[in-house]
Protein backbone atom coordinates (compact mmCIF):
# COMPACT_ATOMS: atom_id res chain seq x y z
CA UNK A 1 0.00 0.00 0.00
CA UNK A 2 2.73 2.52 -0.61
CA UNK A 3 2.48 3.80 -4.16
CA UNK A 4 -1.26 4.00 -3.99
CA UNK A 5 -1.59 5.71 -0.67
CA UNK A 6 -2.22 8.95 -2.42
CA UNK A 7 -5.15 7.48 -4.32
CA UNK A 8 -7.36 7.56 -1.32
CA UNK A 9 -5.24 9.69 0.94
CA UNK A 10 -6.27 12.85 2.60
CA UNK A 11 -4.11 15.56 1.13
CA UNK A 12 -4.54 14.32 -2.36
CA UNK A 13 -7.53 15.20 -4.39
CA UNK A 14 -4.88 14.65 -6.98
CA UNK A 15 -2.52 12.01 -8.20
CA UNK A 16 1.15 12.71 -8.80
CA UNK A 17 2.69 10.78 -11.64
CA UNK A 18 6.23 10.91 -12.83
CA UNK A 19 6.19 10.42 -16.58
CA UNK A 20 9.68 9.50 -17.57
CA UNK A 21 12.61 9.71 -17.75
CA UNK A 22 12.06 6.22 -19.12
CA UNK A 23 8.65 6.32 -20.71
CA UNK A 24 7.35 5.14 -24.07
CA UNK A 25 6.52 8.56 -25.44
CA UNK A 26 8.70 11.21 -23.94
CA UNK A 27 10.93 11.22 -27.04
CA UNK A 28 14.02 10.29 -25.13
CA UNK A 29 15.01 10.75 -21.54
CA UNK A 30 12.66 13.50 -20.54
CA UNK A 31 10.65 13.61 -17.40
CA UNK A 32 7.43 15.33 -16.53
CA UNK A 33 6.15 15.41 -12.99
CA UNK A 34 2.45 15.60 -13.60
CA UNK A 35 -0.24 16.20 -11.07
CA UNK A 36 -3.56 14.85 -12.18
CA UNK A 37 -7.05 15.48 -11.01
CA UNK A 38 -8.89 12.57 -12.52
CA UNK A 39 -7.41 12.61 -15.99
CA UNK A 40 -6.90 16.36 -16.11
CA UNK A 41 -3.48 17.88 -15.67
CA UNK A 42 -3.37 20.50 -12.95
CA UNK A 43 0.36 20.82 -12.63
CA UNK A 44 3.24 19.80 -14.81
CA UNK A 45 6.90 20.22 -14.12
CA UNK A 46 9.26 19.36 -16.93
CA UNK A 47 12.56 17.96 -15.74
CA UNK A 48 15.35 17.75 -18.22
CA UNK A 49 19.08 17.34 -18.30
CA UNK A 50 19.12 13.55 -18.39
CA UNK A 51 20.88 13.69 -21.73
CA UNK A 52 23.28 16.48 -20.84
CA UNK A 53 26.61 15.75 -22.51
CA UNK A 54 28.46 18.93 -21.81
CA UNK A 55 28.53 19.80 -25.47
CA UNK A 56 29.21 23.50 -25.11
CA UNK A 57 32.13 23.03 -22.76
CA UNK A 58 33.65 20.27 -24.88
CA UNK A 59 33.49 22.61 -27.86
CA UNK A 60 35.44 25.21 -25.93
CA UNK A 61 38.19 22.69 -25.24
CA UNK A 62 38.48 21.53 -28.82
CA UNK A 63 39.52 23.16 -32.04
CA UNK A 64 36.97 25.08 -34.11
CA UNK A 65 36.68 22.25 -36.57
CA UNK A 66 36.30 19.58 -33.90
CA UNK A 67 33.05 21.13 -32.70
CA UNK A 68 31.45 20.32 -36.04
CA UNK A 69 30.85 16.60 -35.51
CA UNK A 70 29.48 17.35 -32.06
CA UNK A 71 26.77 19.51 -33.56
CA UNK A 72 25.48 16.41 -35.36
CA UNK A 73 24.49 15.10 -31.97
CA UNK A 74 22.40 18.08 -30.96
CA UNK A 75 19.21 17.49 -32.87
CA UNK A 76 20.12 14.07 -34.15
CA UNK A 77 17.06 13.93 -36.40
CA UNK A 78 18.43 16.75 -38.52
CA UNK A 79 22.22 16.89 -38.19
CA UNK A 80 22.87 18.81 -41.37
CA UNK A 81 21.03 21.94 -40.35
CA UNK A 82 22.98 21.89 -37.09
CA UNK A 83 26.20 21.73 -39.09
CA UNK A 84 24.95 24.56 -41.20
CA UNK A 85 24.09 26.77 -38.24
CA UNK A 86 27.52 26.28 -36.73
CA UNK A 87 29.34 26.79 -40.01
CA UNK A 88 27.21 29.86 -40.65
CA UNK A 89 28.08 31.33 -37.27
CA UNK A 90 31.79 30.71 -37.78
CA UNK A 91 31.67 32.20 -41.26
CA UNK A 92 29.98 35.26 -39.83
CA UNK A 93 32.61 35.46 -37.11
CA UNK A 94 35.55 35.18 -39.47
CA UNK A 95 33.97 36.82 -42.49
CA UNK A 96 34.41 33.86 -44.78
CA UNK A 97 32.75 33.78 -48.17
CA UNK A 98 30.94 30.57 -48.99
CA UNK A 99 31.56 28.96 -52.34
CA UNK A 100 28.63 29.35 -54.73
CA UNK A 101 28.14 25.65 -55.35
CA UNK A 102 28.34 24.95 -51.62
CA UNK A 103 25.53 27.44 -50.98
CA UNK A 104 23.30 25.45 -53.30
CA UNK A 105 24.41 22.17 -51.79
CA UNK A 106 23.62 23.52 -48.35
CA UNK A 107 20.13 24.51 -49.39
CA UNK A 108 19.56 21.12 -50.99
CA UNK A 109 20.69 19.04 -48.04
CA UNK A 110 19.13 21.49 -45.60
CA UNK A 111 15.72 21.28 -47.21
CA UNK A 112 16.04 17.50 -47.50
CA UNK A 113 16.67 17.54 -43.77
CA UNK A 114 13.52 19.56 -43.30
CA UNK A 115 11.56 17.04 -45.34
CA UNK A 116 12.77 14.08 -43.36
CA UNK A 117 12.31 15.85 -40.06
CA UNK A 118 8.73 16.73 -40.86
CA UNK A 119 8.08 13.23 -42.18
CA UNK A 120 9.42 11.73 -38.97
CA UNK A 121 7.41 14.29 -37.01
CA UNK A 122 4.15 13.12 -38.60
CA UNK A 123 5.00 9.55 -37.68
CA UNK A 124 6.03 10.37 -34.13
CA UNK A 125 2.90 12.39 -33.41
CA UNK A 126 0.75 9.54 -34.62
CA UNK A 127 2.76 7.21 -32.46
CA UNK A 128 2.10 9.47 -29.46
CA UNK A 129 -1.54 9.33 -30.35
CA UNK A 130 -1.46 5.56 -30.18
CA UNK A 131 -1.81 4.70 -33.85
CA UNK A 132 -0.16 1.37 -34.17
CA UNK A 133 2.89 2.40 -36.11
CA UNK A 134 1.45 2.51 -39.62
CA UNK A 135 1.90 6.24 -40.07
CA UNK A 136 5.29 5.97 -38.41
CA UNK A 137 6.41 3.28 -40.81
CA UNK A 138 5.17 5.17 -43.86
CA UNK A 139 6.98 8.24 -42.62
CA UNK A 140 10.14 6.31 -41.98
CA UNK A 141 9.98 4.66 -45.38
CA UNK A 142 10.23 8.13 -46.85
CA UNK A 143 12.77 9.31 -44.33
CA UNK A 144 14.95 6.31 -45.09
CA UNK A 145 15.16 7.35 -48.73
CA UNK A 146 16.48 10.74 -47.69
CA UNK A 147 18.85 9.17 -45.18
CA UNK A 148 20.12 6.96 -47.99
CA UNK A 149 20.87 10.11 -49.94
CA UNK A 150 22.73 11.51 -46.96
CA UNK A 151 24.66 8.32 -46.57
CA UNK A 152 25.78 8.21 -50.16
CA UNK A 153 26.76 11.88 -49.98
CA UNK A 154 28.31 12.22 -46.54
CA UNK A 155 29.02 8.64 -45.56
CA UNK A 156 26.68 8.57 -42.58
CA UNK A 157 22.95 8.47 -42.30
CA UNK A 158 22.55 10.61 -39.24
CA UNK A 159 25.93 11.82 -38.07
CA UNK A 160 26.69 13.56 -41.35
CA UNK A 161 29.37 16.08 -40.35
CA UNK A 162 28.93 17.64 -43.74
CA UNK A 163 29.52 21.38 -43.51
CA UNK A 164 32.90 23.04 -43.43
CA UNK A 165 33.82 26.67 -42.95
CA UNK A 166 33.26 28.30 -46.31
CA UNK A 167 31.62 25.32 -47.94
CA UNK A 168 30.91 21.63 -47.69
CA UNK A 169 33.08 18.66 -47.00
CA UNK A 170 32.61 16.65 -50.16
CA UNK A 171 31.04 16.95 -53.55
CA UNK A 172 28.09 15.00 -54.87
CA UNK A 173 28.83 11.45 -55.95
CA UNK A 174 27.76 10.57 -59.49
CA UNK A 175 24.05 9.95 -59.89
CA UNK A 176 23.18 11.66 -56.62
CA UNK A 177 21.21 14.51 -58.15
CA UNK A 178 19.04 12.08 -60.15
CA UNK A 179 18.38 10.01 -57.02
CA UNK A 180 17.54 13.13 -55.05
CA UNK A 181 15.19 14.36 -57.73
CA UNK A 182 13.40 11.04 -57.65
CA UNK A 183 12.91 11.30 -53.91
CA UNK A 184 11.83 14.91 -54.11
CA UNK A 185 9.40 14.22 -56.93
CA UNK A 186 7.80 11.40 -54.99
CA UNK A 187 7.53 13.32 -51.75
CA UNK A 188 4.25 15.15 -52.51
CA UNK A 189 2.66 11.78 -53.26
CA UNK A 190 3.79 10.59 -49.85
CA UNK A 191 2.31 13.68 -48.23
CA UNK A 192 -0.94 13.07 -50.08
CA UNK A 193 -1.03 9.53 -48.77
CA UNK A 194 -0.38 10.72 -45.26
CA UNK A 195 -3.11 13.31 -45.58
CA UNK A 196 -5.55 10.72 -46.86
CA UNK A 197 -4.64 8.55 -43.90
CA UNK A 198 -4.72 11.32 -41.34
CA UNK A 199 -6.17 14.70 -41.94
CA UNK A 200 -9.77 13.64 -42.45
CA UNK A 201 -9.72 11.11 -39.65
CA UNK A 202 -12.36 12.14 -37.14
CA UNK A 203 -10.53 10.66 -34.17
CA UNK A 204 -7.35 12.49 -35.08
CA UNK A 205 -9.19 15.76 -35.66
CA UNK A 206 -10.94 15.46 -32.34
CA UNK A 207 -7.67 14.82 -30.61
CA UNK A 208 -5.76 17.65 -32.28
CA UNK A 209 -8.19 20.46 -32.91
CA UNK A 210 -8.66 22.88 -30.07
CA UNK A 211 -6.02 21.21 -27.93
CA UNK A 212 -3.56 23.56 -26.27
CA UNK A 213 -4.04 26.66 -28.39
CA UNK A 214 -1.22 29.16 -28.20
CA UNK A 215 -1.97 32.77 -29.03
CA UNK A 216 0.34 34.84 -31.20
CA UNK A 217 1.28 37.27 -28.45
CA UNK A 218 2.07 34.52 -25.97
CA UNK A 219 4.03 32.64 -28.57
CA UNK A 220 6.19 35.67 -29.27
CA UNK A 221 6.62 36.45 -25.58
CA UNK A 222 7.52 32.86 -24.88
CA UNK A 223 10.29 32.98 -27.44
CA UNK A 224 8.77 30.31 -29.64
CA UNK A 225 10.22 29.86 -33.07
CA UNK A 226 9.80 27.77 -36.14
CA UNK A 227 6.57 25.95 -36.97
CA UNK A 228 5.28 26.35 -33.42
CA UNK A 229 5.46 30.13 -33.74
CA UNK A 230 4.04 30.21 -37.23
CA UNK A 231 1.17 27.93 -36.22
CA UNK A 232 0.15 30.69 -33.83
CA UNK A 233 -0.20 33.02 -36.78
CA UNK A 234 3.11 34.87 -36.59
CA UNK A 235 4.77 35.38 -39.91
CA UNK A 236 8.36 34.77 -38.95
CA UNK A 237 10.64 32.55 -40.91
CA UNK A 238 14.34 33.24 -40.67
CA UNK A 239 14.79 32.08 -44.23
CA UNK A 240 12.67 35.10 -45.21
CA UNK A 241 13.63 37.49 -42.42
CA UNK A 242 17.38 37.08 -42.69
CA UNK A 243 17.52 35.57 -46.13
CA UNK A 244 20.68 33.82 -45.02
CA UNK A 245 22.59 31.76 -47.49
CA UNK A 246 20.91 32.14 -50.83
CA UNK A 247 17.32 31.73 -49.69
CA UNK A 248 16.28 35.04 -51.20
CA UNK A 249 16.96 33.58 -54.63
CA UNK A 250 14.17 31.02 -54.25
CA UNK A 251 10.47 31.49 -54.48
CA UNK A 252 8.60 29.93 -51.61
CA UNK A 253 5.74 30.73 -49.29
CA UNK A 254 5.68 30.74 -45.52
CA UNK A 255 2.47 29.24 -44.15
CA UNK A 256 0.96 30.33 -40.90
CA UNK A 257 -1.95 29.07 -38.85
CA UNK A 258 -4.79 30.81 -37.09
CA UNK A 259 -5.52 29.04 -33.85
CA UNK A 260 -2.13 27.75 -32.83
CA UNK A 261 -3.52 24.50 -31.49
CA UNK A 262 -2.03 21.08 -31.98
CA UNK A 263 -3.78 20.67 -35.30
CA UNK A 264 -2.23 23.86 -36.69
CA UNK A 265 1.18 22.81 -35.49
CA UNK A 266 0.62 19.44 -37.10
CA UNK A 267 -0.68 20.74 -40.43
CA UNK A 268 1.95 23.43 -40.66
CA UNK A 269 4.61 20.78 -40.98
CA UNK A 270 2.74 19.18 -43.87
CA UNK A 271 2.39 22.49 -45.69
CA UNK A 272 5.99 23.45 -44.97
CA UNK A 273 7.18 20.16 -46.38
CA UNK A 274 5.29 20.91 -49.58
CA UNK A 275 7.00 24.30 -49.80
CA UNK A 276 10.37 22.69 -49.20
CA UNK A 277 9.78 20.43 -52.16
CA UNK A 278 9.43 23.59 -54.28
CA UNK A 279 12.68 25.03 -52.92
CA UNK A 280 14.46 21.77 -53.57
CA UNK A 281 13.36 21.67 -57.17
CA UNK A 282 14.56 25.23 -57.74
CA UNK A 283 17.86 24.57 -55.99
CA UNK A 284 18.56 21.37 -57.88
CA UNK A 285 17.73 23.08 -61.16
CA UNK A 286 20.03 25.99 -60.38
CA UNK A 287 22.98 24.03 -58.98
CA UNK A 288 26.14 25.59 -60.45
CA UNK A 289 29.56 24.02 -60.90
CA UNK A 290 32.73 25.10 -59.22
CA UNK A 291 34.53 24.37 -55.99
CA UNK A 292 32.57 23.20 -52.98
CA UNK A 293 34.61 25.03 -50.44
CA UNK A 294 36.15 28.45 -50.34
CA UNK A 295 39.84 27.67 -50.95
CA UNK A 296 40.86 30.59 -48.73
CA UNK A 297 39.04 29.11 -45.72
CA UNK A 298 41.24 27.15 -43.40
CA UNK A 299 39.81 24.15 -41.61
CA UNK A 300 42.66 22.73 -39.53
CA UNK A 301 44.39 25.15 -37.26
CA UNK A 302 41.67 27.67 -38.00
CA UNK A 303 42.01 30.86 -35.97
CA UNK A 304 39.27 33.39 -36.50
CA UNK A 305 40.02 36.97 -35.47
CA UNK A 306 38.96 37.94 -31.98
CA UNK A 307 35.34 38.94 -31.84
CA UNK A 308 31.90 37.54 -31.42
CA UNK A 309 29.07 36.50 -33.68
CA UNK A 310 25.59 35.07 -33.47
CA UNK A 311 24.62 33.01 -36.47
CA UNK A 312 21.14 31.64 -36.74
CA UNK A 313 19.23 29.63 -39.27
CA UNK A 314 15.75 28.27 -39.60
CA UNK A 315 16.22 24.68 -38.59
CA UNK A 316 13.23 22.38 -39.08
CA UNK A 317 12.39 22.85 -35.43
CA UNK A 318 12.84 26.61 -35.22
CA UNK A 319 15.54 29.17 -34.72
CA UNK A 320 18.82 27.39 -34.21
CA UNK A 321 21.56 29.81 -33.31
CA UNK A 322 25.19 29.59 -32.29
CA UNK A 323 26.74 32.37 -30.30
CA UNK A 324 30.50 32.28 -30.60
CA UNK A 325 33.23 34.35 -29.07
CA UNK A 326 36.73 34.07 -30.37
CA UNK A 327 39.81 35.33 -28.61
CA UNK A 328 41.86 34.71 -31.70
CA UNK A 329 43.07 31.33 -30.56
CA UNK A 330 42.50 27.99 -32.20
CA UNK A 331 39.53 27.16 -30.01
CA UNK A 332 36.30 28.99 -29.21
CA UNK A 333 36.43 31.19 -26.15
CA UNK A 334 32.69 30.87 -25.68
CA UNK A 335 30.41 28.50 -27.47
CA UNK A 336 26.73 28.81 -26.81
CA UNK A 337 23.80 27.23 -28.57
CA UNK A 338 20.26 28.50 -28.78
CA UNK A 339 18.38 25.26 -29.30
CA UNK A 340 14.85 25.66 -30.65
CA UNK A 341 13.66 22.51 -28.86
CA UNK A 342 14.57 23.83 -25.45
CA UNK A 343 13.06 27.28 -25.94
CA UNK A 344 9.90 25.85 -27.49
CA UNK A 345 9.61 23.58 -24.50
CA UNK A 346 9.50 26.41 -22.02
CA UNK A 347 5.78 26.93 -22.48
CA UNK A 348 5.03 23.23 -22.03
CA UNK A 349 3.47 23.56 -18.60
CA UNK A 350 1.30 26.45 -19.71
CA UNK A 351 0.11 24.50 -22.73
CA UNK A 352 -0.59 21.34 -20.80
CA UNK A 353 -2.50 22.60 -17.80
CA UNK A 354 -6.16 21.84 -18.08
CA UNK A 355 -5.71 19.24 -20.78
CA UNK A 356 -6.02 15.50 -20.37
CA UNK A 357 -3.04 13.32 -19.63
CA UNK A 358 -3.24 11.82 -23.10
CA UNK A 359 -2.99 15.31 -24.59
CA UNK A 360 0.29 15.98 -22.83
CA UNK A 361 1.99 13.48 -25.12
CA UNK A 362 0.50 15.08 -28.21
CA UNK A 363 1.44 18.57 -27.08
CA UNK A 364 4.96 17.39 -26.45
CA UNK A 365 4.89 15.69 -29.83
CA UNK A 366 3.62 18.70 -31.77
CA UNK A 367 6.17 20.98 -30.17
CA UNK A 368 8.60 18.53 -31.75
CA UNK A 369 11.57 18.29 -29.46
CA UNK A 370 14.71 16.25 -29.60
CA UNK A 371 16.32 15.67 -26.28
CA UNK A 372 19.82 15.81 -27.69
CA UNK A 373 19.18 19.44 -28.40
CA UNK A 374 17.24 20.22 -25.23
CA UNK A 375 19.90 18.90 -22.89
CA UNK A 376 22.98 19.31 -25.12
Amino acid sequence: MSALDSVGSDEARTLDISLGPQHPSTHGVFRMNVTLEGETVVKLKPVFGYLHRNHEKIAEKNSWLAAMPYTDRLDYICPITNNWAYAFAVEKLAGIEVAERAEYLRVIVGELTRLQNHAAFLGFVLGDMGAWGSALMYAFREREKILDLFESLTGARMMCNYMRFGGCRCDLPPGWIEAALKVVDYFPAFLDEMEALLTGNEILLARLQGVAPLGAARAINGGMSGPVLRASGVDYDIRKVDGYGIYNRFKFRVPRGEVGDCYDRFMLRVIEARESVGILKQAIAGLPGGPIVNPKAKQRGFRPPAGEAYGRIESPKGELGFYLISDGSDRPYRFRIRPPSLINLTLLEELCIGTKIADVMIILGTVDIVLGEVDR
Partner: protein
Amino acid sequence: MNIPGSGIFKGLVVTARNFVGSYFEKDRLTTEQYPEERPTLPENARSFPFLVYDGTDPETGMRCVSCKICEKECPPQCIFIVQDRDAAGKAIKRPKVFNIDIAVCMSCQICVEVCPFESIRMDNAYELSAYDRFSSLLLDKSKLLKSNTYYRSIHPTEAAETDGRIEADRLKKEAAAAAKAAAAQKAAAEKAAKAVEAAPELQKPEASA
Protein backbone atom coordinates in the same frame (compact mmCIF):
# COMPACT_ATOMS: atom_id res chain seq x y z
CA MET B 1 -23.06 18.22 -44.67
CA ASN B 2 -20.44 15.56 -44.89
CA ILE B 3 -20.91 11.95 -43.94
CA PRO B 4 -19.46 11.34 -40.50
CA GLY B 5 -16.95 8.54 -40.48
CA SER B 6 -15.81 9.15 -44.05
CA GLY B 7 -12.39 10.30 -42.83
CA ILE B 8 -11.87 7.06 -40.95
CA PHE B 9 -13.02 5.15 -44.00
CA LYS B 10 -10.52 6.98 -46.19
CA GLY B 11 -7.76 6.07 -43.78
CA LEU B 12 -8.83 2.44 -43.86
CA VAL B 13 -8.60 2.50 -47.65
CA VAL B 14 -5.01 3.77 -47.43
CA THR B 15 -3.94 1.02 -45.06
CA ALA B 16 -5.76 -1.60 -47.13
CA ARG B 17 -3.94 -0.41 -50.22
CA ASN B 18 -0.64 -0.72 -48.42
CA PHE B 19 -1.57 -4.15 -47.09
CA VAL B 20 -2.45 -5.53 -50.51
CA GLY B 21 0.33 -3.60 -52.20
CA SER B 22 2.97 -5.11 -49.96
CA TYR B 23 2.23 -8.50 -51.46
CA PHE B 24 2.45 -7.37 -55.08
CA GLU B 25 4.91 -4.50 -55.23
CA LYS B 26 8.31 -5.59 -54.01
CA ASP B 27 9.67 -2.07 -53.74
CA ARG B 28 7.13 -1.20 -51.09
CA LEU B 29 8.94 -3.48 -48.67
CA THR B 30 11.85 -1.34 -47.71
CA THR B 31 13.14 -3.45 -44.86
CA GLU B 32 16.03 -5.81 -45.37
CA GLN B 33 16.21 -9.35 -44.06
CA TYR B 34 19.46 -8.55 -42.40
CA PRO B 35 21.73 -11.51 -41.87
CA GLU B 36 20.82 -12.95 -45.27
CA GLU B 37 20.36 -9.71 -47.14
CA ARG B 38 23.03 -7.18 -46.58
CA PRO B 39 22.75 -3.53 -47.37
CA THR B 40 24.73 -2.37 -50.36
CA LEU B 41 26.76 0.36 -48.78
CA PRO B 42 27.37 3.49 -50.78
CA GLU B 43 31.00 4.13 -51.52
CA ASN B 44 31.17 6.96 -49.02
CA ALA B 45 29.87 4.90 -46.14
CA ARG B 46 32.09 5.14 -43.14
CA SER B 47 32.34 3.41 -39.82
CA PHE B 48 35.67 3.59 -38.04
CA PRO B 49 39.19 4.61 -39.02
CA PHE B 50 41.96 2.23 -40.01
CA LEU B 51 45.59 2.64 -41.07
CA VAL B 52 46.62 1.98 -44.65
CA TYR B 53 49.86 0.22 -45.53
CA ASP B 54 51.41 -0.31 -48.93
CA GLY B 55 52.72 -3.61 -50.21
CA THR B 56 52.39 -6.77 -48.17
CA ASP B 57 54.17 -6.11 -44.91
CA PRO B 58 52.21 -3.91 -42.48
CA GLU B 59 55.27 -2.78 -40.55
CA THR B 60 57.40 -1.66 -43.44
CA GLY B 61 54.58 -0.47 -45.68
CA MET B 62 52.96 1.66 -43.02
CA ARG B 63 52.25 5.16 -44.27
CA CYS B 64 51.85 6.62 -40.82
CA VAL B 65 54.81 8.66 -39.74
CA SER B 66 53.57 9.28 -36.22
CA CYS B 67 53.07 13.00 -36.78
CA LYS B 68 50.23 12.99 -34.20
CA ILE B 69 48.09 15.49 -36.05
CA CYS B 70 45.11 13.16 -35.92
CA GLU B 71 45.65 12.58 -32.23
CA LYS B 72 45.53 16.30 -31.68
CA GLU B 73 42.56 17.00 -33.92
CA CYS B 74 40.38 14.06 -32.91
CA PRO B 75 37.26 15.62 -31.36
CA PRO B 76 36.59 12.93 -28.74
CA GLN B 77 40.32 12.29 -28.22
CA CYS B 78 40.12 8.60 -28.97
CA ILE B 79 43.50 8.23 -30.71
CA PHE B 80 46.64 7.44 -28.77
CA ILE B 81 50.04 7.41 -30.44
CA VAL B 82 53.54 6.73 -29.14
CA GLN B 83 56.40 7.39 -31.51
CA ASP B 84 58.85 4.60 -32.09
CA ARG B 85 62.49 4.99 -31.22
CA ASP B 86 65.45 3.12 -32.47
CA ALA B 87 67.99 1.41 -30.30
CA ALA B 88 69.90 4.62 -29.84
CA GLY B 89 66.79 6.40 -28.56
CA LYS B 90 66.39 8.49 -31.66
CA ALA B 91 62.82 9.08 -32.86
CA ILE B 92 61.81 7.13 -35.93
CA LYS B 93 59.07 8.26 -38.25
CA ARG B 94 56.84 5.38 -37.31
CA PRO B 95 54.36 4.79 -34.44
CA LYS B 96 55.30 2.29 -31.79
CA VAL B 97 51.78 2.33 -30.36
CA PHE B 98 48.74 3.42 -32.35
CA ASN B 99 45.47 2.83 -30.53
CA ILE B 100 41.97 3.88 -31.46
CA ASP B 101 39.24 3.34 -28.94
CA ILE B 102 36.27 2.76 -31.19
CA ALA B 103 33.97 2.76 -28.21
CA VAL B 104 34.78 6.45 -27.99
CA CYS B 105 35.31 7.24 -31.67
CA MET B 106 32.37 9.03 -33.21
CA SER B 107 33.17 8.27 -36.86
CA CYS B 108 33.49 11.91 -37.74
CA GLN B 109 36.24 11.39 -40.27
CA ILE B 110 38.20 14.46 -39.16
CA CYS B 111 41.35 12.37 -38.64
CA VAL B 112 41.10 11.37 -42.29
CA GLU B 113 40.76 14.95 -43.42
CA VAL B 114 43.71 16.23 -41.45
CA CYS B 115 46.14 13.38 -42.18
CA PRO B 116 48.80 14.79 -44.52
CA PHE B 117 50.25 11.34 -45.29
CA GLU B 118 47.09 9.63 -46.65
CA SER B 119 47.59 7.12 -43.89
CA ILE B 120 44.38 7.04 -41.86
CA ARG B 121 41.20 6.17 -43.69
CA MET B 122 37.61 5.21 -42.88
CA ASP B 123 36.56 1.60 -42.90
CA ASN B 124 33.00 0.55 -43.67
CA ALA B 125 32.78 -2.65 -41.65
CA TYR B 126 29.80 -2.35 -39.36
CA GLU B 127 29.48 -5.69 -37.59
CA LEU B 128 31.65 -4.79 -34.66
CA SER B 129 29.63 -5.89 -31.69
CA ALA B 130 31.74 -7.59 -29.06
CA TYR B 131 31.47 -9.07 -25.63
CA ASP B 132 34.43 -7.31 -24.18
CA ARG B 133 35.00 -3.63 -24.23
CA PHE B 134 38.79 -3.58 -24.02
CA SER B 135 40.07 -6.54 -25.96
CA SER B 136 37.62 -6.00 -28.79
CA LEU B 137 36.89 -2.31 -28.99
CA LEU B 138 40.28 -0.84 -28.22
CA LEU B 139 41.96 -1.37 -31.56
CA ASP B 140 45.73 -1.50 -31.57
CA LYS B 141 48.12 -1.17 -34.46
CA SER B 142 47.84 -4.81 -35.54
CA LYS B 143 44.07 -4.55 -35.84
CA LEU B 144 44.14 -1.12 -37.40
CA LEU B 145 46.59 -1.80 -40.19
CA LYS B 146 44.89 -2.81 -43.40
CA SER B 147 46.36 -3.06 -46.85
CA ASN B 148 45.94 -0.57 -49.63
CA THR B 149 44.29 -3.35 -51.64
CA TYR B 150 41.56 -3.54 -49.01
CA TYR B 151 41.23 0.21 -49.10
CA ARG B 152 40.85 0.10 -52.87
CA SER B 153 38.16 -2.54 -52.52
CA ILE B 154 36.00 -0.56 -50.12
CA HIS B 155 36.42 2.98 -51.42
CA PRO B 156 37.57 2.58 -55.06
CA THR B 157 37.11 6.18 -56.14
CA GLU B 158 38.68 7.70 -53.08
CA ALA B 159 41.52 5.17 -53.15
CA ALA B 160 42.22 5.87 -56.79
CA GLU B 161 42.40 9.59 -56.01
CA THR B 162 44.71 8.93 -53.10
CA ASP B 163 46.91 6.62 -55.13
CA GLY B 164 47.01 9.20 -57.86
CA ARG B 165 48.02 11.83 -55.40
CA ILE B 166 50.69 9.64 -53.89
CA GLU B 167 51.94 8.70 -57.32
CA ALA B 168 52.02 12.34 -58.33
CA ASP B 169 53.81 13.16 -55.12
CA ARG B 170 56.26 10.39 -55.71
CA LEU B 171 56.85 11.51 -59.28
CA LYS B 172 57.24 15.06 -58.12
CA LYS B 173 59.59 13.98 -55.38
CA GLU B 174 61.52 11.82 -57.79
CA ALA B 175 61.68 14.65 -60.23
CA ALA B 176 62.74 16.95 -57.45
CA ALA B 177 65.23 14.41 -56.23
CA ALA B 178 66.46 13.89 -59.75
CA ALA B 179 66.72 17.59 -60.23
CA LYS B 180 68.42 17.89 -56.92
CA ALA B 181 70.68 15.03 -57.71
CA ALA B 182 71.42 16.55 -61.06
CA ALA B 183 72.01 19.87 -59.42
CA ALA B 184 74.16 18.25 -56.79
CA GLN B 185 76.01 16.37 -59.42
CA LYS B 186 76.45 19.51 -61.35
CA ALA B 187 77.52 21.35 -58.27
CA ALA B 188 79.81 18.50 -57.33
CA ALA B 189 81.24 18.43 -60.79
CA GLU B 190 81.73 22.14 -60.65
CA LYS B 191 83.15 21.84 -57.21
CA ALA B 192 85.37 19.04 -58.29
CA ALA B 193 86.49 21.06 -61.22
CA LYS B 194 87.14 23.95 -58.94
CA ALA B 195 88.82 21.69 -56.44
CA VAL B 196 90.97 20.28 -59.10
CA GLU B 197 91.77 23.76 -60.02
CA ALA B 198 92.28 24.77 -56.42
CA ALA B 199 93.81 23.04 -53.47
CA PRO B 200 93.63 19.21 -53.56
CA GLU B 201 93.12 18.88 -49.74
CA LEU B 202 89.44 19.94 -50.03
CA GLN B 203 88.46 16.49 -51.31
CA LYS B 204 88.35 15.18 -47.76
CA PRO B 205 84.74 16.11 -46.73
CA GLU B 206 83.37 14.69 -49.99
CA ALA B 207 84.71 11.33 -49.05
CA SER B 208 83.05 11.37 -45.67
CA ALA B 209 79.65 12.25 -47.23
